[in-house]
């Protein structure tokens, strides 16, 4: 009888230990899916690529010809949050965005070339926003209007060189430095990027001013394979000029190369 009880207790302890360990493992796996870049199937690794080829392969994933997306911006400051929701349409030159969260519902933006237009829904004002505002945080976020609404191929804007290869958050990555092409207008003079060596998607990016000062750091927390391309769907941007603030950008739904509504990038559509 005593032996039976002993065996039963041992079995119980083993079961509890096993269940506990499994739940910890599951939790760890969940964290690694959300807090770190998701590890899914791997593409063929390449080690003989030039800087331009690496960036071109990244552009093939992240550069948008046309897209429709629904996204959420979570602005955090010292433990507090503001949430903004938006849907946007963009092509290789233009972007149109409409906010859908209650406070900003109906506020719309149109960016064509270097001009930014804004529609305020209550009085239905349609105003051209001054150029200096393009560098400011969009709706109070750490993403500037330029960050959010520009979609240029990086190879056209920056001259890149490989700084090395290193692991970033458990992923093998190329580390590259891009310096702006003379005569090109860009928001950041220099950028250092970590690009996944297997998936060719940006994992981290440091954005610098011409003075060398670090302005912003973007960290990709989650990438997904959508329509045969790896795409960052969860990114955190930290403005290094500000303390205790960050903006998380969550892509909830994205469709590449959709048929865009007629005249979507027009003042008529903004009204």
């Amino acid at each position, binding site marked *: 009888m005593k032996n039976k009880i002993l065996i039963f207790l041992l079995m119980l302890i083993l079961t509890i230990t096993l269940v506990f360990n499994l739940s910890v493992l599951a939790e760890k796996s969940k964290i690694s899916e959300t807090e770190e870049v998701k590890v899914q199937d791997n593409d063929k690794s390449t080690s003989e690529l030039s800087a331009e080829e690496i960036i071109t392969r990244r552009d093939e994933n992240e550069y948008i010809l046309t897209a429709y997306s629904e996204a959420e911006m979570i602005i955090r400051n010292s433990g507090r949050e503001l949430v903004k929701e938006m849907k946007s349409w963009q092509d290789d030159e233009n972007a149109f965005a409409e906010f859908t969260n209650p406070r900003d519902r109906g506020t719309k933006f149109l960016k064509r070339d270097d001009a930014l237009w804004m529609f305020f829904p209550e009085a239905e004002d349609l105003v*051209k926003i001054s150029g200096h505002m393009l560098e400011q945080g969009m709706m109070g976020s750490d993403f500037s209007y330029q960050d959010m609404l520009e979609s240029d191929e990086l190879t056209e804007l920056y001259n890149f060189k490989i700084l090395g290869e290193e692991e970033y958050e458990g992923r093998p990555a190329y580390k590259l430095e891009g310096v702006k092409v003379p005569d090109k207008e860009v928001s950041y003079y220099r950028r250092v990027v970590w690009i996944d060596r297997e998936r060719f998607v940006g994992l981290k990016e440091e954005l610098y001013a011409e003075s060398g000062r670090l302005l912003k750091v973007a960290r990709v927390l989650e990438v997904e394979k959508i329509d045969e391309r790896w795409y960052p769907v969860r990114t955190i941007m930290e403005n290094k*000029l500000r303390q205790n603030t960050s903006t998380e950008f969550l892509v909830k739904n994205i469709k590449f190369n959709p048929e865009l509504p007629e005249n979507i990038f027009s*003042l008529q559509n903004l009204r």
Partner: protein
Amino acid sequence: MYKKSQRYRSFYLLILIIILLIISFPAAALDIGGKASFKSDIVYENSEWENKIISELEMQLFLPEERGISLENLLLLTVESDEVKLDAKKLYLKKNIGALTAKIGRQPVSWAYGSLINPIDYTLGAENLEEETMAKFVDAVELYYPINWKSGLTLVGSDQEDQSENKWGFRGRTMLAGYDISANYIINNREDDEIKRWALNTKGDLGPLGIYGAAGKADISSNRGDYKYNIFQLGSDYSYNFLSGRRLYIQAEYINFNLGPDVKRDQKFDLLPDMEIEIDDRKAEFIAANLTWDIDDFSSVGLMTVNYLEDGSSMFIPSYNYYFSSNLLLELRGTIFVGSRGKLFGEEIRALEMNLSYTF
């Protein structure tokens, strides 16, 4: 605007339309949003204090477009003391007819271009001070014809207080060399006078500065005498990010109303929307400025001033905004007149408005 009875008739008619449309739309397609506000106005005027408590509920139905027609609506329920008032800020039908877009019903008509004061807006001088918040919302028909993505023509016709009073406006807008340019013309037939006004305005960038300007000419035929005046405005805005990440936004503008030789001294004019000005000289000049300082992502302070150069009197409007959460906002706004008695901003006025609003 209509007379009261006519206004109510059209309002009830539109309510009926909205109900019919709601019934005809599938329930799943409906969405309701709005804003609930609690306001407290403390005013010190003529050595007396007054405190008003106002509750407001704005309701908006988001209806899907049906057969190319959409119904835009924004209803406002106001409760002040024992008085309950229901008004429609917006209640209009919008339909594309070929290339044209037509809007019929109560709607805001705004010809804004980013200035602090718009001396050439559609609603110029048409509203009374107590209707300030409703000033841009008129019963109107608007036709918009797009020429290309950046250019379009707008024709607006609206009713005034009486059906014999009406207003017509025409506006063309385009972009040239990075500058937003528009021209407008207004004919406003009122009971005591007729105003004809044309104007031009532009907005663009000059290096790191945003710049804008406007020029116009008004002809007034009035039973107080015919007269003309010219309008001129020049303004600039600039924003700067400090290393701490805080942002400063500055905007300032100069406005000049230059009166023709027909003007009699001590005559009163509706030069600015909601502001009747007694002119002692042949010109009226103003400097308006705004300064906004973003303290952090959740709060900002601001100061707007309007200075009347002819008599040196000024109006100061300090403000403070604070977000408790994404949908709960506290706004504080003061109004202080500084000037001796008899001057434009010479009334002994101090006011503090507190507005706590929740959006849903």
